[in-house]
């Protein structure tokens, strides 16, 4: 697992189609492959959420063709309860794993991390290629569960045991469905472990001459921190999934206690611990949230800075904050389990780090705001989405104050408040990060500009739409609207149904607005106007490659030498208002690295 001779022996550009586009060892192609996977996954996941929203608004509405996704889940094209839960589970799993983790981390990271550190490739391209294809296999296995047995699992993306471990008697999809789910996630973990291995090693060892750690762009720092989190988190989830599979296939009892009676049948298992799964899962699960969002911090900073024409108030404080977030993210996972039967003392023990984690988060936001002050902001699709990210992160962040407190969790646990919280702070914010990155880096990735007007339209519809969808979630949650309900049976939830109808409409419109992005992406890919080498007048290394997209070895045979900190904008006495990292020009930097 540690032989790199092939890596560099393979550094003569491949000629065959397979070698070039399918099993490519080139980090740029792999990055694009990850982006493509995330692209397909996000469209699919969004489609699933449409179906769910329709069902929540109009429960007995027949939807033509509904049966195609579930063998027997839609009699007369009306969604059954299990079908809804299956869609919900798949939506969550696909979005968290195959979109929010792959796109900002694996896709952009693969493409730009080696370029931004000034390397011609990752040290272990074989692993990099395997990393993608294993992840891809995981996706296929997951989607395959739609077409097997009685459909995918309905246990939610958290797959709480014992429901996930007792087999078909627990409900449709709880047999083969869960096994496929766990197998898919285990594959995903392996894929991401290989990816993280590459990211860490590249950042530590492949930096070009003069590229000290402090001279790394914030995006690289974000990916580096994320990959360290990934290394620890995924290495824990994988064995958990394997134990879950064993409970199904080998009849072991890791997660199933004795004396369970389901459907009047005494279950054969004995002595398992149901909280064990929750501990293993959330030890991964909470860092996973930061794995999804931290690359967003990096991308947004990296996108915002050239558009503000100034460096952040402090490069290092930003980095320290991200590191603090990463470390704290391992001490807070218990806040998912306040009322789940964990010792109430540990609830309090977990609540304090959870509250404290808001401090580095606040610092990050304040650094952004403070840097906006006195900047020379350029408004374009990329910067708009970056600003949107900040707004989303604030909105989602403040609701964290509530969920960090066990006493308030009594009121809010498992309500739509939680759903609103994580959709804003993690899902939508990360999506905004992805959009910002796409509009910003597209010219480098494909050598063409994206249509800025369409981009702005896309932003406005998405931005307003998102608030229209997820703000009401918080209100409903406060009023006690429980999540993961396919219909609102309790009497006190009847008044919520009109609100859900409205949300559904907003969701459909916002979803439709994404088609503008899809069109923009595809159209610009082929017919967009050719991009200059450095359209944003940015300083980091990806903008000093000899061509867009960069040549196979990124820098055309000569590795760059780095002379400056990554973000030298608005320097007095310098020739322009920005100084590339590679330009040997002498400047008196006023940045805090001095």
């Amino acid at each position, binding site marked *: *697992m540690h032989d790199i001779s092939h890596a560099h022996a393979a550094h003569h550009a491949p000629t065959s189609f397979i070698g070039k586009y399918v099993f490519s060892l080139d980090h740029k192609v792999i990055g694009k492959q990850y982006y493509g996977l995330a692209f397909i996954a996000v469209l699919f996941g969004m489609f699933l959420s449409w179906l769910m929203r329709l069902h929540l608004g109009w429960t007995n509405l027949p939807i033509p063709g509904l049966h195609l996704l579930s063998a027997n889940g839609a009699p007369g094209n009306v969604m059954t309860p299990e079908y809804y839960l299956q869609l919900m589970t798949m939506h969550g799993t696909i979005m968290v794993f195959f979109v929010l983790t792959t796109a900002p981390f694996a896709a952009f990271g693969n493409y730009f991390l080696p370029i931004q550190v000034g390397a011609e490739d990752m040290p272990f391209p074989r692993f990099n290629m395997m990393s993608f294809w294993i992840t891809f296999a995981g996706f296929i296995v997951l989607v395959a569960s739609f077409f097997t047995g009685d459909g995918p699992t309905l246990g939610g993306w958290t797959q709480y045991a014992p429901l996930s471990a007792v087999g078909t008697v627990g409900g449709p999809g709880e047999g083969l469905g869960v096994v496929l789910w766990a197998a898919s996630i285990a594959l995903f973990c392996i894929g991401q472990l290989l990816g993280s291995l590459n990211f860490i090693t590249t950042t530590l060892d492949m930096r070009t001459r003069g590229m000290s750690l402090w001279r790394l762009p914030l995006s690289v720092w974000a990916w580096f921190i994320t990959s360290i989190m990934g290394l620890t988190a995924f290495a*824990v989830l994988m064995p*958990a999934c394997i134990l879950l599979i064993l409970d199904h296939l080998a009849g072991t009892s890791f997660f199933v206690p004795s004396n369970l009676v389901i459907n009047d049948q005494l279950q054969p298992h004995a002595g398992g611990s149901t909280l064990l799964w929750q501990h293993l899962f959330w030890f991964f699960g909470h860092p996973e949230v930061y794995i999804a969002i931290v690359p967003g911090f990096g991308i947004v900073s990296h996108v915002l800075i050239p558009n503000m024409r100034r460096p952040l108030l402090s490069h290092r404080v930003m980095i320290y904050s991200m590191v603090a977030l990463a470390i704290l993210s391992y001490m807070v996972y218990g806040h998912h389990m306040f009322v789940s039967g964990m010792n109430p003392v540990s609830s309090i023990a977990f609540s304090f780090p959870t509250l404290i984690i808001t401090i580095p988060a606040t610092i990050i936001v304040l650094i952004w705001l403070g840097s906006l002050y006195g900047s020379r902001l350029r408004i374009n699709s990329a910067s708009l989405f970056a600003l949107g990210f900040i707004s989303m992160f604030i909105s989602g962040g403040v609701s964290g104050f509530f969920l960090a407190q066990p006493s308030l969790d009594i009121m809010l646990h498992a309500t739509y408040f939680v759903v609103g919280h994580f959709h804003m702070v993690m899902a939508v914010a990360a999506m905004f990060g992805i959009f910002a990155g796409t509009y910003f880096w597209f010219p480098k990735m494909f050598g063409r500009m994206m249509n800025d007007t369409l981009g702005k339209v896309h932003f406005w519809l998405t931005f307003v739409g998102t608030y229209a969808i997820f703000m009401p979630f918080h209100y409903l949650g406060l009023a006690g609207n429980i999540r993961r309900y396919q219909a609102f049976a309790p009497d006190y939830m009847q008044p919520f149904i009109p609100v859900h109808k409205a949300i559904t409409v907003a969701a459909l419109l916002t979803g439709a607005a994404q088609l503008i992005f899809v069109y923009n992406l595809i159209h610009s890919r082929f017919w967009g106007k050719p991009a200059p080498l450095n359209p944003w007048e940015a300083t980091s290394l990806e903008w000093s490659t000899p061509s867009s997209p960069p040549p196979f070895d990124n820098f055309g045979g000569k590795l760059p030498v780095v002379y400056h900190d990554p973000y030298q904008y608005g320097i007095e006495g310098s020739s322009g208002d920005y100084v590339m990292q590679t330009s040997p020009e002498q400047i008196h930097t006023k940045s805090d690295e001095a």
Partner: protein
Amino acid sequence: MATTVQPPTVKEIEKRSVPETGSGNGGWRPQGGDQRLLQEYAPPPASTGIWVGLAAISMTFAALTSALIVRKGGAVDWQHFTLPSILYLNTVVLLASSVTLELGRRRIAAYMGGLRTTVQHPARWLYITFSLGLLFVAGQYIAWRQLSAQGLYLATNPSSSFFYVFTAGHALHVLGGLGGLGRAVRKLNHLDLRRSTLDATARYWHFMGALWVYLLVLLWMKL
């Protein structure tokens, strides 16, 4: 019939002559970043990479360990059993293989470093290590057979479940290491073995030994 490893290449010498400008700013990278040289200077990623990889593996087994402890705490039906004695023999074998590998590595490394002029049968120690590794896996297999003969299968009891999970997980990783060893031997015979590859292989292999000792103590205490 003595094979000899390639003599130190020009670039090896160059490498030692490049001034180290300290880590952190990619000091090992060549002046002006000529990519032809780069290939020769790639070793550090390999050694960093192996440490990162080992960190991940440790994390996995740490998770399983905590699972074992939690699970045992909550179990009303924990059934203790004595480990098959052959495990201790296997331990000796695995540790011995580490020693032999180290012997081989030292000699080859010394030669590559130019401290020695020739090495007789450089691959011999690696072959011995390889076969000891195979012996270990076979020994583990016998241990499983003995347990199932006692009627202790994977699903029989939490304790047996964990025993199989741990040992099988470790055995898989050892097999991976054997793959790496085989690769190293092949490269050695094709005279294109890189020092870093050899070292990384060795580190991984020693780690497998250490991990096994840890697991043995854990299982011995808990089962």
